[in-house]
């Protein structure tokens, strides 16, 4: 009896020592949410449609070394038209886009970059990224994210921030995050303080059982949410973005934190985009995604068309993005 008592006491002690983490800091949420109010949601789908239309007439990327197969139609990957549209879009907002050209092993990448300089700590950069290459019309993957990035870039120009906001369209993500890898390896990310990377943020449905789990990780059954993925380094960012996005009613966000740097085998599905190398480098970064092929049956298919997207979902996600960027860049 005495033994049972001891075991019970010790077990209770362990449970009492258990950690229930506190919620995120909500300071500056109101100011950040106000930046989201400057997002013009009617601008979004026209960007998606323009990009999709241009891709269908674009010349595919040389796919030598990347043989085409199911869900990886490498002979239908385009980027040239997207580089032009994105650059022109930034110019029309008053930015001066820089196209970083990096060549290695005979393959050239074109990353399109603009900055909105910070006022008090400009050396600290908040990177907002999305890949510009895509298969077929690529409305969700990744026209939706490009549209959100462009509209956020326009909205932030009405405000001043402590940190610099850098918008980067990465090339050749579909061939293995080549553009972002070269960008990081060439030292362009050395001043990045934190990052938000988007990959497919426009597809949602309210049908039950429309959302698959991701490699054993249970997610809500209905695919009507945006998944915000962080790792140990970006756990605090994840908490803040979820609290900000959901509390302001701007979006339906689900937050997920992968263990460690996110590279463990059973969580590796969450590294599948341009944030991967940032995680490896220890740079706090979030991935925003509708979970791609775990929800969208048009993933990497000719049917990934603008009409399959949910404009309200894309609009809500863009507002959540703008608010998060404002929070992390410290809107003044």
């Amino acid at each position: 009896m005495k033994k049972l008592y001891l075991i019970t006491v010790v077990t209770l002690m362990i449970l009492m020592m258990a950690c229930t983490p506190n919620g995120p800091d909500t300071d500056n949420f109101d100011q950040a949410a106000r930046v989201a109010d400057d997002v013009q949601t009617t601008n979004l789908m026209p960007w998606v449609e323009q990009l999709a239309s241009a891709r269908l007439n674009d010349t595919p990327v040389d796919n030598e070394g990347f043989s085409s197969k199911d869900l990886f139609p490498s002979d239908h990957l385009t980027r040239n038209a997207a580089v032009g549209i994105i650059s022109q879009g930034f110019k029309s907002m008053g930015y001066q886009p820089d196209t970083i050209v990096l060549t290695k092993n005979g393959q050239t990448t074109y990353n399109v970059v603009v900055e909105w300089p910070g006022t008090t700590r400009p050396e600290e950069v908040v990177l907002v990224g999305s890949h510009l290459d895509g298969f077929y019309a690529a409305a969700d993957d990744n026209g939706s994210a490009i549209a959100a990035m462009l509209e956020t870039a326009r909205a932030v120009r009405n405000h001043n921030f402590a940190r610099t906001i850098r918008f980067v369209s990465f090339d050749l993500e579909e061939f293995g995050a080549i553009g972002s890898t070269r960008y990081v390896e060439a030292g362009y990310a050395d001043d990045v303080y934190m990052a938000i990377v988007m990959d497919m943020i426009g597809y949602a449905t309210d049908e039950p059982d429309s959302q698959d789990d991701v490699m054993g990780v249970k997610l809500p059954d209905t695919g009507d949410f945006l998944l915000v993925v962080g790792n140990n380094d970006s756990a605090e960012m994840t908490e803040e973005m979820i609290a900000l996005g959901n509390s302001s009613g701007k979006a339906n966000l689900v937050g997920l934190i992968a263990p460690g740097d996110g590279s463990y085998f059973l969580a590796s599905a969450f590294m599948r985009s341009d944030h991967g190398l940032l995680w490896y480098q220890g740079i706090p970064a979030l991935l925003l995604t509708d979970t791609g092929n775990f929800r969208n049956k048009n993933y990497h298919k000719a049917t990934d068309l603008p009409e399959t997207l949910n404009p309200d979902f894309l609009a809500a996600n863009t507002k959540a993005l703008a608010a998060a960027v404002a929070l992390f860049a410290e809107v003044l």
Partner: protein
Amino acid sequence: MIRKILFFLFIATISLQARSEIQWTPVLQQTAMYYASDRVTADGIGPATGVNITWNENFIGQIDIGVLWGNGNSVPMRFALGYQKSGKWNPAVYGTFGLLFGQRTEVLSEDGRRPAIPVWNAGLRIAPLRFESAFGVASAFEIGYGIGPDNGTNLELTILSVGLTL
């Protein structure tokens, strides 16, 4: 964390030694586990160590702690009480309670809060291939099933467990 665990094992060991009719057996084992709930996913395979306790011939208990590799370093601490058949082949059935520490994939609440540490689970474990001799105990392919908070499901497979009677 390690200090808490060692302290617990120390206390458990001291308390058991006080009763002479109790036989205790240190065990080493290889365990695979998959725990998934709406908030937490932890899984992997790895080694564990603990103490197997037998009293009145048929009543058994086990406390063990391990490390699971596969999705970071998860640390399951398991408590089990059960009943075994007498004889050299002595299959057993346990009621189990587990605490899961360490790394895991987390889903946040709507207001951005992370799930608590540890996560508990409770369930049953059966050990159909369990054998005992004067030297100790060996058991293979123990299968466990449990439930936890937030629609949690716990699946365990103790691939091999070996203990030497002291």
